[in-house]
């Protein structure tokens, strides 16, 4: 195993996910992308990532449902989770933070800021 940090990112806007993957891989992270909430929990159990980023509004299974699953499984509950959501859904953010998310990003976002936050969270651990 290399000591590359792994991030799991669930986001239905594929282009944006690709952009972040591009940026993060350039900085030496490893990013695994899921186009919806389906399979994310299983993915987290399998890959044991250092960080999970969840979009809240996703088809089939939304981010908050995934978050609940992650936090209710003791083997992965301590992996930090960042939520992404449109700036008009601020009420979801409160719910997400109550459920145990460590931070949130409102869309539209500046990728530089997101990168900084990711690095800070990973450094803290």
């Amino acid at each position, binding site marked *: 195993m290399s000591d590359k940090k792994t991030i799991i990112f669930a986001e239905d806007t594929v282009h944006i996910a690709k952009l972040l993957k591009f940026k993060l891989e350039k900085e030496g992270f490893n990013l695994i992308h899921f186009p919806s909430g*389906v399979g994310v929990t299983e993915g987290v159990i399998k890959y044991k990532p250092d960080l999970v980023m969840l979009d809240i509004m996703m*088809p*089939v*299974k*939304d981010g908050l449902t995934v978050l609940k699953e992650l936090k209710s499984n003791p083997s992965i509950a301590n992996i930090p989770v960042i939520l992404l959501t*449109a*700036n*008009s*859904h601020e009420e979801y953010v409160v719910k997400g933070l109550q459920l145990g998310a460590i931070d949130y990003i409102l869309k539209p976002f500046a990728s530089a800021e997101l990168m900084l936050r990711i690095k800070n969270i990973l450094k803290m651990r």
Partner: protein
Amino acid sequence: MEIIKYIVFGFNTLILLYFLAVCSIYITLNIIAFFKMSKYNRTIKYLDLKRVFKLTNYKPISVIVPAYNEENGIVESIKSLLQLEYPDFQLVIVNDGSNDNTLQKLFENFSIRQVSFTPFYKLKSQPIRSVYMSSEYPNLIVIDKVNGGKADAINAGINLAKSPLITVIDADSVLERDCLLKIVRPFMDDENVIAVGGTIRIANGCNILHGNILNVGLSKSWLARFQVVEYLRAFLFGRNGFDVLNGILIISGAFSCFSRDALIKIDGYRAGCIGEDMEIIVRMHRKLRRENPKLRITFIPDPVCWTEAPETFKVLRSQRMRWQKGTVDSILLHKNLFMNPAYGWIGMLVFPYFALFEMLGPVIEIFGYFFFIFSFALGFVTISFAVAFLTTAILYGVVLSVLSVILEELSFQRYPKLSQLLSLIAAAFLENFGYRQLTTWWRFRGMVEYFTGKRHWGKMEKKGFVK
């Protein structure tokens, strides 16, 4: 002998004219629909539907789901309904006295607890036993009531719904996630809109996961494919065309949205009615639009709701017989709209169209076919007449069905593969040789049953989407 020949000839000609009229009306509607749809698509493309979330005054919606013996699908359905994209909506599940474990399933999955309740409105319904709310999902309400049928269950739901807009769906409808965003648009665009229908498509053959359409597909069964074409025809241009005249007389019960005030004003659904979804719209025209002709009943052409179609003859037969009874019932209940100038286009054109073609259609057609065969056998008809009759009755239908597939292809292109497009076109062609006549026969039988007294519903068997 000569006289009889003339009578037979005259009669046959009348029936020929009838077939000609039906198809010509449809062709006209088709052309109207084409223009309307291309305009609609142009408007919607760059609207960024989700911007509604940013607004401060979106209209809250209550989604009412009547459920009777749905223990197999109800949990999946609710889970996916809870994921609809809309800033403020409430789910009202009405357990209509199921005698299976529907309510039990809700207890197990949604941690619901009993609350005290008072109906806000006084629409007639069977007594409500109790009301439950969920601590986990604050926008979920479950009503448990004594069995009374679908219309009755919806009324009970309206009595307890808190939002100014009411969406009614079937428990087994599969909804597109942005369907509420789309269905409120007509209400937002025009304050006079009181009811909006959605376009229904056939879900058979589609890849469905947890109540979400992943891939649109076609069923292997030709019976289902014929129905796909039928639905395209009915929704794409049947309704689009009439919408131009503000003449929508039927909104499918599988997905419809109303202003609550309008529902309350007309005392809700008529309990015990066979075709409650058509009846309520006719009554809205009759009561509300008479007072205020500006009010609009409209529909949106986007496919927003997918429903399972029967794949066996038996189930399809009972469905079609039931629908026909519903149409007859709604039309007879409101027969004084017929050719009544006080109701404008509805009275003079749309209602007579429904009475003549939708209600009496099967009778005339079945009679026509038999009469034609009979007189042909007796040698009463010339070859050129026979050819004309058969082309009008069958080939004209082919033109229509194929045109509706073309219209779908030009507007929404929901079937991604070329092979699917080709088999739809094949289905459009083939449905005119047998399938259409068969459904006509069933509708005819439905009518006979209606008038001979068997007015009960008939059961819809579920195939179920749960895998």
